[in-house]
């Protein structure tokens, strides 16, 4: 059981990358629009984020330096500051979307009006981060989010076309709208590499007190198992959407549409498990983003940081994560659509993507820092390959967003 709990950091980080509010709806829309054609994108994205999370976890373990510390040193103050501003903007927008998402799910569960529930969501998140130790945040929200495994059960119950599912592992375009295909592929891959995942993951490694050599294995296991679980959840949502929504011509635009996909084959229990899974997963993603924002600021400016300290022991860090939640509340209460905000935040993360991943790759491969634990041939090759993919995603995201009218054609 202890082993299972130890990988909770990877599970919670993966929840942000694969099943936050935007991903849940986006994956369902990809399945409803293109069937199984983009299953490969989830798998490719999962392997990429495993590679980079393992690297930054290793750097945190060996050099005791989380990602933003490395970003500032390798890129210098000015470029580092640009990265900080871009990533904080994305963190703030994503956090706002997630807080709104928590309120939406609470509304599905209890039927109360939306705006008061935004305040309830804010309070729940503030209380959770203030009172829960880091490892319990990982466990409660990481493993709670795994209730979304109900979509895997729903997918099995719907008796999916395994041939088509297998064919989806091979990139192929079978649609009259190749641009729409590209939009969804880039969106899925881009969401997988959202920078806050690695900020959260590497800082979490320091929070968890990882020390070599034992925790190097734990890091590898955490990165692989956590993101693999995230990918399974993501593919499951795509499968139920392909099986249920394609034949009926339903275009998912709400979290409720996705929940309906669990209810249809599994009844009320399926609906409730799906909603609870969403509640934990989206809350976890909100906490990922607010803490990632505070980690970035503290590491860039050299403040005391860490949830392992009492709030008074790292006051600027504490004020920053609380401020992220406060800002999120103000954005969502203004009436913007949380799903729209999160889709935009994926696009705006394009500036932060290469600037985040280049320093990780350079430091993880630098034997002056890492000694015998620097990148080997496999990690180095995969790292450079994925870096090229990240740059392509960054360049393609905005034009595709405009050309496809956010995937609506």
């Amino acid at each position, binding site marked *: 059981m202890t082993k299972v709990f130890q990988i909770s950091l990877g599970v919670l980080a993966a929840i942000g990358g694969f099943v936050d509010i935007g991903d849940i709806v986006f994956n369902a829309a990809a399945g409803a629009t293109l069937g199984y054609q983009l299953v490969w994108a989830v798998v490719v994205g999962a392997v990429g984020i495993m590679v980079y999370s393992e690297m930054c976890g290793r750097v945190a373990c060996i050099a005791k330096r989380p990602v933003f510390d490395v970003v500032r040193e390798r890129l210098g103050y000015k470029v580092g500051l640009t990265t900080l501003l871009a990533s904080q903007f994305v963190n703030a927008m994503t956090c706002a979307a997630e807080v709104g998402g928590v309120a939406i799910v609470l*509304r*599905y*569960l*209890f*039927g109360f009006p939306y705006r008061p529930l935004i305040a309830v969501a804010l309070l729940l998140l503030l209380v959770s981060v203030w009172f829960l130790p880091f490892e319990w945040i990982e466990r409660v929200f990481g493993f709670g989010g795994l209730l979304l495994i109900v979509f895997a059960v729903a997918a099995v119950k719907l008796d999916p076309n395994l041939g088509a599912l297998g064919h989806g592992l091979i990139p192929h375009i079978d649609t009259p709208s190749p641009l729409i295909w590209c939009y969804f592929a880039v969106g899925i891959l881009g969401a997988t590499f959202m920078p806050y995942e690695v900020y959260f993951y590497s800082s979490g490694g320091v929070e968890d007190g990882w020390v070599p050599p034992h925790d190097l294995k734990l890091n590898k296991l955490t990165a692989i198992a956590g993101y693999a679980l995230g990918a399974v959840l993501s593919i499951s949502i795509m499968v139920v959407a392909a099986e249920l929504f394609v034949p*009926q*011509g*339903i*275009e998912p*635009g*709400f979290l*409720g*549409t996705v*929940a*309906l996909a669990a*209810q*249809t084959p599994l*009844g*009320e229990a399926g*609906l*409730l498990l799906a*909603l609870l899974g969403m509640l934990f997963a989206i809350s976890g993603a909100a906490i990922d983003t607010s803490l990632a924002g505070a980690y970035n600021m503290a590491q860039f400016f050299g403040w005391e940081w860490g949830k392992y300290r009492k709030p008074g022991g790292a006051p600027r860090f504490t004020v920053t994560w609380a401020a992220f939640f406060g800002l999120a509340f103000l954005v969502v209460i203004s009436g913007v659509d949380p799903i729209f905000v999160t889709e935009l935040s994926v696009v705006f993360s394009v500036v932060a993507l290469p600037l985040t991943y280049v320093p990780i790759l350079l430091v993880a491969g630098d034997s002056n820092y890492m000694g015998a634990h620097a990148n080997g041939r496999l990690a180095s090759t995969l790292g450079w390959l994925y870096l090229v993919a990240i740059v392509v995603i960054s360049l393609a995201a905005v034009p595709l967003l405009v050309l496809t009218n956010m995937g*609506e*054609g």
Partner: protein
Amino acid sequence: MTEYRFSKDSESLQSLATEGSLLADGVVDGRTTSAFVLTHAQELASNTEKLASVVASTHPETGLAEKMMRLAALAREAASQLRTLAGHPSDAAAAARVRSALTNTADAAEKLAKSL
């Protein structure tokens, strides 16, 4: 409004109405919760009302005027049915009527999309 936009809006109405009938189906079979039905039916109704309003207020291309009026009327009818579902989220008899009406609306919207 162009033929392409008309076709897209018809498909959107088909999607909203079909989803509404799926939601009502859960009420009929007792496989859902009233809080979920109330909330999601309101969301669907709100989007359907917006669609009706956009379609009704857009200037049509030649030959599309009659079809656009029909699409706007269908959207208003679907929104009304969804509001009824939101108002009676645990009433199986009302949900059965809504399901039937929304299924008909979805079929009609599909025919409109294919009529060009």
